[in-house]
């Protein structure tokens, strides 16, 4: 077991941990299973605090399995990064259409080479995979390729590529194995693909069927549509993106439809059958359609099955996520877990936060809990959605006083020339008693970039008055967030608006759009102007 490669200082915190003064010798201060966002962050930071760290990860491949993974994890290899690359690629399709009214003469159909994009995407994730490996090496973290298992509270066994097993002792073990896409158990499920494969398809589908209502479903629907495919999106509920603000969900659905995606709400798939012409898809409404690709975006499950956690007594929840306390510690004190494996808030920056705070807590001598409130996030459908804080429904439930809702629907300036019929929608939810902004959301171009700064304001409890006192940047879409002057509606404390009334309001709003589209550039003014009408129109809607 020739593993002690570099000499390192013994931990000060290690001494503190042993009040009897007797030093147990471990191969590592920390051994991390899984080199994704959370694992790499925790390893690097722990090493910077002086800990001796080992980390293991499965060999690299774009499509993950029990035995394949890669340094960088889901985000870099099969998630955020390749997804966003494809979103960029897909966005050019509609961009080229928009260019025409700006005076650009283009062919009716522009050629898109999927293989080229795929190749460049793979190049990029390989580059990032290399960067991650270097980052680990530069911070003195020892990387092992192979499958890690927990064999005792302080013992990890790594099965190497050649099948040989080596075990390492560690004072602390961190589980950061992430999660993997799940398939729906219906007949023919093996014909479907998950997001892993969708990011690496050999051929671009001409006809794509997407099952699911989450962010992955709407993102892939947008990607394939942008690249010219016919896309049918099926989901169980009335609207996609459960858990998001209801009004925003309706806006996303409308935009997906506006961009040419066929929506099938309240519909399930019942069977997939291979035929000569492709995959025949049957729904619970008795419909049938043909597809080249069927994507199941039906959720992800934590990668905890083959970690041997039960054997050492680490508690898991119903879906198999590792149960942790606020410091990311499991019920076995020497074993910790972060990221998607714990199924708290499955986002890269949250895993980074959890990983960084773990390192600080365990090796930095400063116990610190990750704070999962006011975490902003984005859905990269086209156009994207981004939110921070509470949805209108959550705010109504949680606020003590009345909730004030400020909204704005406007035609983005670019569309005035391009002629694209698509409105940007923004919303601020404010506590009427404290004036604090409880939630912000936006669906429209650049929403994720716009929301980041807004998130700081929310995180720090900024008030609506502070938003209003900020001067706008003109002409931008973002300036709407600081010029929302009049209340669209006021929701009495404790009332629970149903989705129905919200949707009715959206209808009202659409009726109003004739006026709305007139108001584009004077967003700063029109709120006052529209106030009276809006109030008249909205109040009956709410009470009905």
């Amino acid at each position, binding site marked *: 077991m020739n593993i002690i490669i570099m000499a390192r200082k013994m931990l000060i915190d290690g001494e503190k941990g042993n009040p009897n003064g007797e030093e147990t010798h471990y191969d590592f201060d920390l051994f991390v299973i899984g080199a994704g966002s959370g694992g790499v*962050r925790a390893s690097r930071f722990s090493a910077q605090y002086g800990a001796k760290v080992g980390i293991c990860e499965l060999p690299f491949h774009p499509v993950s399995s029990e035995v394949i993974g890669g340094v960088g994890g889901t*985000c870099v290899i099969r998630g955020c*990064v390749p997804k*966003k*690359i494809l979103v*960029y*690629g897909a966005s*050019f399709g509609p*961009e*080229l259409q928009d*260019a025409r009214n*700006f*005076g*650009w*003469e283009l*062919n009716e159909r*522009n*050629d*898109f080479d*999927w*293989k080229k*994009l795929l190749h*460049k*995407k793979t190049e990029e994730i390989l*580059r990032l995979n290399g960067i991650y490996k270097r980052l680990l090496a530069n911070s003195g973290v020892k990387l092992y390729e192979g499958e890690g298992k927990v064999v005792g509270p302080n013992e990890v066994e790594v099965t190497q590529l050649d099948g040989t097993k080596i075990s390492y002792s560690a004072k602390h073990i961190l589980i950061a194995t992430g999660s993997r896409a799940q398939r729906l158990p219906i007949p023919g499920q093996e014909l479907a693909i998950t997001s892993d494969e969708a990011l690496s398809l050999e051929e671009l589908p001409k006809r794509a069927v997407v099952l699911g209502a989450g962010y992955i479903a709407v993102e892939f629907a947008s990607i394939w549509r942008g690249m010219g495919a016919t896309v049918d999106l099926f989901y169980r509920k009335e609207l996609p993106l459960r858990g998001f603000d209801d009004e925003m969900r309706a806006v996303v659905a409308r935009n997906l439809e506006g961009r040419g995606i066929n929506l099938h709400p309240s519909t399930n798939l019942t069977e997939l059958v291979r035929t000569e012409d492709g995959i025949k898809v049957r729904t619970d409404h008795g419909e049938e359609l043909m597809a080249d690709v069927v994507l199941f975006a039906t959720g992800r499950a934590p990668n905890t099955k083959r970690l041997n956690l039960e054997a050492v007594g680490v508690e898991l929840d119903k879906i198999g996520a590792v149960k942790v306390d606020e410091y990311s510690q499991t019920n076995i004190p020497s074993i910790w877990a972060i990221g998607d494996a714990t199924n708290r808030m499955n986002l*890269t*920056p949250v895993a*980074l936060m959890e990983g960084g705070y773990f390192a600080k807590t365990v090796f930095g001598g400063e116990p610190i809990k990750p704070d999962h409130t006011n975490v*902003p996030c*984005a859905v990269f459908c086209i156009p994207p959605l*981004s939110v921070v804080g509470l949805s209108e429904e959550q705010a109504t439930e949680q606020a003590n006083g009345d909730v004030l809702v400020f909204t704005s629907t406007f035609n983005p*300036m*670019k569309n*005035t*020339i391009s002629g694209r019929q698509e409105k940007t929608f923004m919303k601020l939810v404010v506590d009427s008693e404290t004036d604090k902004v409880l939630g912000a959301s936006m669906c429209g171009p*650049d929403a*994720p*970039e*716009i*929301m*980041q*700064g807004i*998130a*700081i*304001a929310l*995180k*720090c409890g900024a008030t609506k008055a*502070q938003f209003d006192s*900020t*001067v706008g*940047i*003109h*002409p931008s879409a973002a300036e709407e*967030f*600081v010029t929302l002057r009049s209340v669209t509606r006021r929701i009495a404390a404790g009332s629970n608006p149903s989705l129905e009334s919200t949707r009715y309001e959206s209808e009202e709003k659409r009726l109003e759009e004739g006026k709305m589209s007139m108001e*584009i*550039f004077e967003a*700063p*003014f029109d709120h006052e*102007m529209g106030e009276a009408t809006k109030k008249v129109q909205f109040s009956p809607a709410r009470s009905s």
Partner: protein
Amino acid sequence: MAASLSTPKLSSPTLQTLCKKCKFPTNPFSSFSHYNKPNHFGSFNSFSHPRTRSYCRRFTTRADSTNVAEPPRKYDFDLFTIGAGSGGVRASRFAANFGASVAVCELPFATVSSDSTGGVGGTCVLRGCVPKKLLVYASKYSHEFEESCGFGWNYAAEPEHDWSTLIANKNAEIQRLTGIYKNTLKNAGVALIEGRGKIVDPHTVDVDGKIYSAKNILISVGGRPFIPDIPGSEYAIDSDAALDLPSKPRKIAIVGGGYIAVEFAGIFNGLKSDVHVFIRQKKVLRGFDEEIRDFVGEQMLLRGIEFRTEESPQAIIKSSDGSLSLKTNKGTIDGFSHIMFATGRKPNTKNLGLETVGVKLTENGAIEVDEYSQTSVPSIWAVGDVTDRINLTPVALMEGGALAKTLFANKPTKPEYSAVPSAVFSQPPIAQVGLTEEQAIKEYGDVDVYTANFRPLKATLSGLPDRIFMKLIVCAKTNKVIGLHMCGEDSPEIIQGFAVAVKAGLTKADFDATVGIHPTAAEELVTMRTPTRKIRRTPSEGKTDSEIKSTAGV
């Protein structure tokens, strides 16, 4: 056109309605209530600014004389606004909303402004922000076509641009907008008078021979491009003309290094004109953060714009083939189809009658105002570019809104100029809020500077040399973020939210506590962990040390 305007005669139904409105105001803060409430100005006592105090005294005297000596004089309007641009329209509408009777006059519509042409909507809508940004959108596409090649898109032929389609669509849009502005005025009950307004006395405005009296007069006539008087300057175009050229320049010289110059350089370069920028200094964008100035210059150079630094124009020569030559202190460059001067703007204060009523102007012709936008003549006020404070549309809106509150809502309000964010729609664009590094060091001495200079995800795929530069300036003593600068794609959209945070006085720790949105460029601003340099006043710690930031955000 005149048919659509409210007729200025007192007998007109509009005006009668307005007069009724001011006799029986629906708003509790009626304009006349000012003079009837003796302790109305009590709130002014705490103000320390000397001009405010004199303002207060003046008002008291006037109020006294109004109350005691003579019955309140009857005016045609509570407010007469000269100039229906951003600031004028905002002030007029808000004043009307507060119950005041308001008229606004504006010159007839034209894409190019002059002493006799203007148009409802003003510079922003007709000759500034809006048409400029529409042209920026159009010109950005050539870069997007290049980018898209790296993402698998192919073009059978190089996309060509048709200038006339763009200009026609742009003009249709600004026509539509000027119509909307007229409607918003009408809906607010503001009387719109087409013509050239001139002040006759502190309460009287003459619009092309028709006389209107008003309790308050607001000057919001904006500014206009200024071309220095050199031989051949008649061949030069300004930004007004550049936004409405009959054909696209083949080869254009842009003289100037300010935001207008760099924006138009980006526009014409994107539309594939040959662009040469002549700047007097070594760098573009004087007054901006030095690193931003360097960075944007480099990025523009990479996109094909040619810069000629430390060159001042001396003459323009038109040759027999119609092409133009620009003679500078360093030589003469031939073959330009167009020469554009972006050499600054001047307030439109000539021929307004200001001298006759004694409204004080600054050296460069701007109207001098106090913190409440009041001029040296108490009944005359001014907002927007004509006052040359911060010449931005949202600032004019803020000044206009504050003035309406001060005059008609019983709420004296000063516009607040700290942490006003702004953007330059160069390619790539710039946005900023708060202090530059140079200002911050001067003001606070000890500052920590965090920077990031990276290649965005899009550029790694496109293979283009695009980069993003970001800078956070933190007061070392208070940990407050006092300056934020960014150059790169989406900067103006990104910085708005951060401006809320800076305005609210949030700290670097607050930024750090915020979780990133992944993958975005903006998340970089909440994940800057190590200062690039710490600047300290005391010589012992005063060395500018440049610690190198860890490579990636992992």
